[in-house]
């Protein structure tokens, strides 16, 4: 499963849509591979919630939560990106909530949290994801 995600991540990378850059923050040491895999996991999570697949949803949500925990630490270390730290933390909490909701079979709550998670992702990407494709 993880290998599949990594492959999908690389396929997505071919579109070049996930390179990160800003004008005044050096993100050259950012783990782009992890972000690609998270991107794929977020998409898979949407489908798994829609299909009411509790186990797969929880696995995806936990993967996203772990990745955002890493991102939270990364941006905390940069010291000049408090908004990114906040978004990563919000996203992590939402991903944890999704995992919990799907594990108890509450897919409506999981989907509501998922919509918030996606908005949080976009808020951060609007600032930190390069529009250059």
């Amino acid at each position, binding site marked *: 499963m993880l290998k599949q995600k990594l492959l999908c991540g690389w396929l997505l990378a071919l579109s070049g*849509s996930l390179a990160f850059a800003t004008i005044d923050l050096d993100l050259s040491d950012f783990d782009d591979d992890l972000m690609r895999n998270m991107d794929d996991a977020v*998409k898979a999570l*949407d489908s798994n919630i829609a299909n009411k697949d509790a186990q797969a949803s929880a696995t995806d949500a936990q993967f996203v939560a772990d990745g955002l925990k890493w991102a939270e630490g990364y941006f905390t270390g940069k010291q000049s990106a408090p908004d990114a730290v906040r978004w990563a933390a919000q996203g992590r909490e939402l991903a944890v909530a999704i995992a919990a909701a799907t594990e108890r079979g509450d897919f409506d709550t999981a989907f509501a949290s*998922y919509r918030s998670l996606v908005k949080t992702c976009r808020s951060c990407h609007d600032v930190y994801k390069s*529009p*250059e494709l």
Partner: protein
Amino acid sequence: MSNKKSRREFLSHAALGAGAAALSSLLPGLGVSTAGATGIVDPLAPKPPHFAPKAKSVIWLHMAGAPSSLDLFDYKPDLIKLHGQPLPDSFGKNLKTATDGGVGALLATKRSWKQHGETGAWVSDWLPNLATQVDNIAFLKGTKTEGSTHVISSLKLHTSGLTPGRPALGAWIQYGLGSANPDLPAFVVLPTGKGSAGGGRQATIWSSGFLPASYQGTAFRQGDSPILHLARPQVVTADEQRNTLELLKSLNEHQAAHYPQDTELQARARSYDLAFRMQKTAPEAVDLSKESEATKKLYGVDEHATQEFGTALLRARRLVERNVRFIHAISGTPEDSDVDSWDAHNDIEKNHTVMTRSVDKPIAGLLADLKARGLLDTTLVVWTSEFGRTPYGQTGDGRDHNPWGYTTWIAGGGIKPGTYGATDEIGLRAVSGIVDTYDLQATLLHQLGLDHNKLTFQHLGRSERATTVFGEVIKDIVA
């Protein structure tokens, strides 16, 4: 067994004749391998919406190449004051601005501006006719997207994907609602001018993607015979064609009686019927001879500069009257012009003078005509482009691509007129009422009675949606 095989070969070859070739794309499952495609007996059968719709049809006006909102709708006095100065750091913060031409000095618009109508919408003198229609329009001035290349942003605008392979919005609408007219395609594309196939994107922006092929857009040609290969060949008489189709029908019915589970055979039989009916209905739908001279004049059909786009939009109105769900009209460069689509990297004055002249009167005429006929209330008219253009200049007299802030607008179909959202003081990026292309699509689906969160299709084990994982209905403009 060998008998069955030869019969399939016969059907396969027969599909190339009698006008059916034009409709091979309407057959479900052909060239498509999706879990969700199985079990769809008649993909074009009408389906109930998720809730009561406000609109029945969409006319999607695609300004391929990307016009400059800053010279049409988004009046920025500060940009005029700052003309010739470098882009201030405060505006460019956190934006990776360079695409292929670098960042030149700020470039003021040369247009004159006025507020129009009761809504007071700003429109430049490049669109004098459209300015008379602003009270029907919701201007989304905080539109943004991703990407800075035509291909990627055009794909995103139409399919919500950054790479080819996803269905266009018109295909999703057909999938969700089916066809409201069994005698015409439910998703029609009206390209005009040079380079009009979506600014070089061609059929990928009206593709059915992973949905069954029957949902893809059907491109209409100019002239009396809108669908390629649909007309009966001259060497075949009407009686001969009718006899051939009757024989095919009887053979298909005989076979179908033995194999009721063979949905592809049923669909193929229906496609012959549809092709036969469309030999009459499609030419009639685009025949403007019964339109009054006043109506043709309203669309600019009588003027050289507006003849082609005006003809396309008058056809669009006729298709709406015939319950076609989605009409995708593409603004290309007039045939006798040397400008290159709306993509004004150079000499924007010359480019936009040509391009605005070709669309202004036809679009204003369309809105006025739809309203006069009582059709605007149930028809969504959408002005879109893959992105906008930058406030900073390029090559001294052109503008670069701007995905961060530009104007889209919607008229009719239960949308509240007015101005929503804004870009910053120089028009570089959206700062309020921010709307992404996903939100635009979600809103159009909503007006058609479809919940973008519930309109799903199983593809390769995944539940796919039109707006991918994104999209919010723009509640401020929903009446």
